[in-house]
């Protein structure tokens, strides 16, 4: 199926979870925030939320640090 991933049209498996999508893209889930259709998804739900055709998925790496 086709989804939008960070603004780009991408294909992923039908009914893929966020966890599966991140794994497929080799993205460590503990390092990113994920939004689906403008709603932030809690990390504990990455393996429960299934994507649908046309979903808009955004992921961003954390920006942090310290002195």
């Amino acid at each position, binding site marked *: 199926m086709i989804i939008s991933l960070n603004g780009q049209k991408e294909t992923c498996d039908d009914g893929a979870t966020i966890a599966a999508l991140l794994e497929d893209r080799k993205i460590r889930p503990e390092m990113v925030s994920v939004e689906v259709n403008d709603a932030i998804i809690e990390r504990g739900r990455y393996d429960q939320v299934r994507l649908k055709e046309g979903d808009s998925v955004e992921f961003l790496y954390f*920006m*942090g*640090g*310290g*002195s």
Partner: protein
Amino acid sequence: MADEEPRDIEMEPESFREMIEHLKAHAPNEACGILAGTDGRVVRVYPMTNVEPTPYSYFMDPKEQFAVMKEMRKEGLSLVGIYHSHPATTPYPSRKDRDLAFYPEAATVIVSFRDPAEPEARAYRIAEDRVTPIPLVVRPRRAGEKSRKLSAA
């Protein structure tokens, strides 16, 4: 994310002052923000909320981060740099800065306020835990150089 690593970062004096004033306003806590632009030249400063406001840490609000990154994409801007303050230490990336450097295509800009009267700004490229200093050039726009400066939101 783009693959290209930053060679230097350029800011107009106005943008540089905006960054410094934002960081100074949050002392003694750390503060942070995003520098957006094209080809290593900053055209927009996004002050961000530090959701871990202490004198030794920062963590950007993910909600704001999503909003800013989407706006940048819409306006054709790239992530040129990520800035934050070191209120009491040198302007050099800490262990935590290196561990959380997930955007090697962006410059890491650190402003030290060890001497509050003389803030010290430095820029680095951080890739695969390697820290490379890069020039931070503050200069006015040259004559004939087209401005892409955008109005503040």
